[in-house]
């Protein structure tokens, strides 16, 4: 047993292993206040809520308070390990500024009130608008942090009860392209890969995926492979020199906005050299001839010019991909939040498909997501999809859903895809959406072009309900604020990136009058008087387990089949991967074995979209193209980004994340060790660009785009020339300004600068290509920026003290041989 500073060493100690071997266990734990395991009253089963990896853990409770966490050794996902956010983030639950009472706006101010008053105001306004205008006036914007049961209930209320098409989640910023890319290639959502593919792969390719920071424990698994015998080769595509880039065999750092060009050149090379599995392509795919034709012109030389990456490097990467025997590909925001997001992510699928690398150990695709429960918004129909991957264009799917819900099919809007948030905002701006119910997310910091977002949310004609655990920047603009319980204070299930479902049990009571989101939603449904077609209440459950049972029925026979699971089965052991049913009672590790897909026209979730315009493909067209449900190879032409650098705005601005924070810092900013590791916003610039302007580490800079201004201290990092990077986590709740920058003052939130533009296929906003200018406000005078040194923001110049956590960040590590179970 050892204690190490997990801020200084985010990935902990190495436990090397070889290909095909089982990843050794290492149990990580952290208990506060010098407590030991003997002091703990009880351990309550859960999983991590501050990223999408789904690391299983137990919550330590003493005197009815959470006092720490310990990784679950038996779990397939993490084999006992936890990341820094898991170890320290739970402390935010205890923050003194938790919301404990409902708030309502009176004479322009939010004041405390009781639940009845608050809920009557919410339901009252919704009913009024339904009467006056109909369901088109009402919209819902949720998150990737609630539980499956809550999303399913929310989807039922919105789609089935109120009948509005306006339902989306902040997963739009996060996982929308992952889902879209899978729907394009496999005509259905559903993760083709499994984390154990890391144990077997001989090549791991990470596309715009800084796994080291976004899924620290998954990266630990890669690091342990890299430290063991016969390590895999790693390919990294990222404009920044991230920890992944530093570990890579080949690191391609393309110009922002050119991912599709790069991907096309890689595919061009793979096809030209015949590194394809002809048999697989012929038996299990459609569209190869067109792909081959379209990729003809995309030579490495052309891509070298457009992407500013040496042609030889592109060839080298293509060779490694083309000669891999077990290829695991992973994708995240560098692709998803970029220009032509879906086309780029689909190209990654294309490589695995034409190489026949699917459904076998080590051969997988992980189209990642960032949030812990993002997968569930997709499954349960709370993010712009219908529940259980039903197809809005397929009348029989709608009829079947109506049967499950016991309502008239006409009640479920299916004349067009559910309205994504960017379009919802447009309707709010025009005034046709007049009621917005936000659960557990903070659009006033996380959406692009914040000045516009604030203007929209602050409109008098918009009734804004915010259900959250803190008075976030968004909550400060609300008409009614509902205090919610969070992780550890309520029971439910959630599903990680590789389809593993975990239960998270209630460990302690929520503070004050705060209530579980599920209870609030059910209360709302009852106050709205929502009924099924026989006049019975539409929402038929009153607790989480009841909702789970309801969901199981809804998922029956669909790809994400949960019917073989139960709360009992999820307790005690490891998480379980769906589909889990009579046929696969222990879940399913690998889908798409032997080229069997869920793409049949009658069964699939989506007929796909045009890769450039985003127009949905019609049913007849899809049937003609793919009558037997094979994988679809889709090619996309490269088109340039919409906002290019100019003389006035010479840089390309990317926003992104850092290891120590999650989303808008509402929790991680309140966990002392995490906050201290990255306390303030910074901006990254390449050494050459900084030298040209005479800037040095720590200079205070002003970054300007046509949308706004942000002030940040400079970190000279390994980012590519011409690009800037700003972390997007920092808002205003912990500044004097409260919810937004004071007039004339520079902002702190990166999204003051981003532009309103999105991928027409996935509708995911673009955060990686805004033209920006930089000027110096004042010199550093010995001060350095607050950027961590352990991550993608590692300094490349000057002497910057290393990021450490000291005594407060010492956590236990126990490398075991497995006998602890």
């Amino acid at each position, binding site marked *: 047993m050892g204690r190490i500073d997990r801020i200084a060493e985010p990935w902990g100690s190495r436990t090397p292993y070889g290909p095909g071997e089982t990843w050794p266990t290492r149990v990580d734990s952290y208990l506060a206040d010098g407590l030991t395991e003997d002091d703990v009253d009880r351990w309550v089963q859960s999983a991590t809520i501050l990223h999408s990896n789904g690391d299983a853990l137990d919550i330590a409770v003493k005197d009815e308070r959470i006092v720490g966490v310990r990784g679950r050794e038996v779990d397939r996902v993490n084999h006992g390990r936890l990341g820094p956010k898991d170890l320290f983030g739970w402390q935010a639950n205890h923050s003194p500024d938790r919301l404990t009472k409902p708030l309502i706006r009176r004479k322009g101010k939010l004041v405390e009130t009781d639940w009845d008053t608050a809920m009557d105001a919410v339901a009252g306004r919704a009913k009024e608008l339904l009467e006056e205008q109909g369901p088109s006036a009402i919209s819902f914007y949720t998150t990737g942090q609630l539980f499956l049961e809550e999303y399913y209930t929310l989807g039922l209320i919105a789609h089935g009860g109120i009948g509005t098409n306006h339902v989306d989640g902040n997963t739009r910023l996060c996982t929308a392209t992952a889902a879209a890319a899978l729907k394009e290639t496999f005509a259905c959502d559903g993760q083709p890969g499994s984390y154990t593919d890391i144990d077997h792969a001989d090549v791991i390719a990470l596309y715009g995926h800084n796994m080291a920071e976004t899924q620290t424990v998954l990266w630990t698994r890669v690091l342990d492979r890299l430290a063991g015998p016969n390590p895999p080769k790693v390919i990294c595509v990222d404009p920044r020199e991230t920890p992944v880039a530093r570990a890579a065999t080949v690191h391609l750092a393309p110009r922002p906005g050119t991912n599709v060009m790069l991907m096309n050149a890689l595919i061009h090379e793979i096809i030209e050299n015949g590194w394809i599995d002809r048999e697989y392509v012929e038996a299990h795919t459609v569209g190869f001839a067109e792909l081959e034709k379209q990729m003809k012109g995309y030579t490495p030389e052309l891509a070298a010019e457009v992407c500013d990456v040496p042609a030889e490097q592109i060839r080298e990467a293509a060779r490694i991909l083309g000669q891999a025997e077990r290829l695991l590909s992973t994708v995240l925001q560098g692709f998803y939040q970029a220009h032509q997001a879906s086309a780029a992510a689909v190209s990654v699928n294309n490589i695995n498909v034409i190489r026949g690398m699917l459904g076998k150990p080590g051969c997988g695709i992980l189209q990642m997501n960032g949030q812990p429960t993002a997968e569930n918004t997709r499954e349960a129909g709370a993010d712009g999809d219908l529940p259980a991957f039903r197809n809005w264009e397929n009348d029989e799917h709608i009829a079947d859903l109506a049967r499950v819900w016991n309502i008239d099919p006409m009640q479920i809007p299916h*004349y067009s*895809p559910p309205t994504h948030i960017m379009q919802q905002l447009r309707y709010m701006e*025009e005034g046709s959406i007049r009621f917005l119910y936000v659960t557990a997310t903070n659009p006033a910091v996380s959406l692009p072009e914040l000045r516009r977002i604030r203007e929209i949310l602050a409109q008098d004609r918009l009734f804004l309900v915010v259900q959250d655990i803190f008075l976030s920047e968004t909550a400060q603009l609300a008409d009614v604020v509902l205090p919610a319980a969070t992780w550890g204070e309520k029971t439910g299930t959630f599903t990680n990136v590789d389809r593993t479902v975990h239960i998270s049990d209630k460990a302690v009571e929520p503070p004050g009058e705060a209530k579980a989101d599920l209870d609030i939603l059910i209360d709302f449904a009852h106050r709205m008087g929502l009924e099924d077609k026989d006049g019975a209440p539409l929402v038929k459950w009153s607790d989480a387990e009841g909702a789970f049972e309801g969901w199981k029925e809804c998922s029956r026979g669909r790809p994400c089949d949960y019917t073989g699971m139960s709360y009992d089965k999820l307790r005690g052991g490891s998480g379980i991967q769906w589909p889990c049913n009579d046929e696969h009672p222990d879940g399913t590790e690998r889908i798409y074995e032997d080229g069997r897909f869920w793409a049949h026209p009658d069964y699939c979730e989506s007929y796909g979209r*045009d890769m450039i*315009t*985003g*127009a949905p493909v019609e049913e007849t067209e899809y049937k003609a193209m793919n009558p037997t449900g094979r994988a679809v190879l889709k090619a996309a032409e490269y088109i340039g980004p919409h906002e290019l650098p100019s003389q006035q705005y010479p840089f390309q601005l990317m926003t992104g994340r850092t290891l120590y924070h999650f989303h808008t810092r509402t929790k991680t900013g309140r966990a002392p060790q995490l906050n201290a590791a990255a306390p303030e916003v910074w901006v990254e610039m390449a050494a050459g660009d900084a030298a040209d302007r005479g800037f040095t580490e720590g200079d205070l800079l002003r970054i300007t785009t046509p949308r706004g201004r942000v002030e940040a201290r400079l970190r000279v990092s390994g980012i590519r020339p011409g690009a800037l990077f700003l972390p997007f986590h920092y808002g205003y709740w912990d500044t004097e300004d409260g919810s937004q920058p004071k007039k004339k003052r520079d902002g702190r939130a990166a999204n003051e600068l981003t532009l309103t533009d*999105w991928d*027409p296929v996935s509708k995911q906003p673009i955060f990686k290509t805004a033209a920006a200018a930089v000027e110096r406000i004042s010199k550093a005078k010995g001060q350095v920026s607050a950027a961590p040194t352990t991550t993608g923001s590692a300094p490349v110049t000057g002497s910057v003290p290393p990021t450490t956590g000291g005594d407060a960040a010492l956590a236990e590590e126990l490398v075991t041989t497995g006998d602890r179970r």
Partner: protein
Amino acid sequence: MKLDMAIEELHRSENHLVTVLTSMSDKHKADHEVFYVTRDMAKWSREHVADLARIGRDFGLDLDPEASEDPGLLSAMKQRASVLTGRRSAPGLLLLADLRHLYREAAGTSVDWELLAQGAQGAKEQELLDIAERCHPESLRITRWANAHLKVTSPQVLAS
């Protein structure tokens, strides 16, 4: 042979499509997807105009390879006006009207391409056929986008 007439006519209608797309883009600056996607699609039509001008020479035509467009200033003014009105009044109906218009223009153009392809096949004009086969799907995609966007937009405009 009347292929020259068909080329000339198509050159005119693709040219017109560029104008329809770009002016629609300028008018709906506050509708971001419309703004950007119409611009991306206008690039296709611009290329079609150039292709037609090039092949037109073989048929004795002297066509302008550059699409005639709004001067930048005018387009910037339209954009500014559209942001102002687009965020206040109910521009939904205007958008529906423009989408219908685009749909009809693009559908007409796409039919013309089909005609040209048929003609080229009949006359065994391989190069012309290649161009038609390349361009026709793109004008179809514009039609489909207009249709799809009508479907998405109309319920909100008409039912609220």
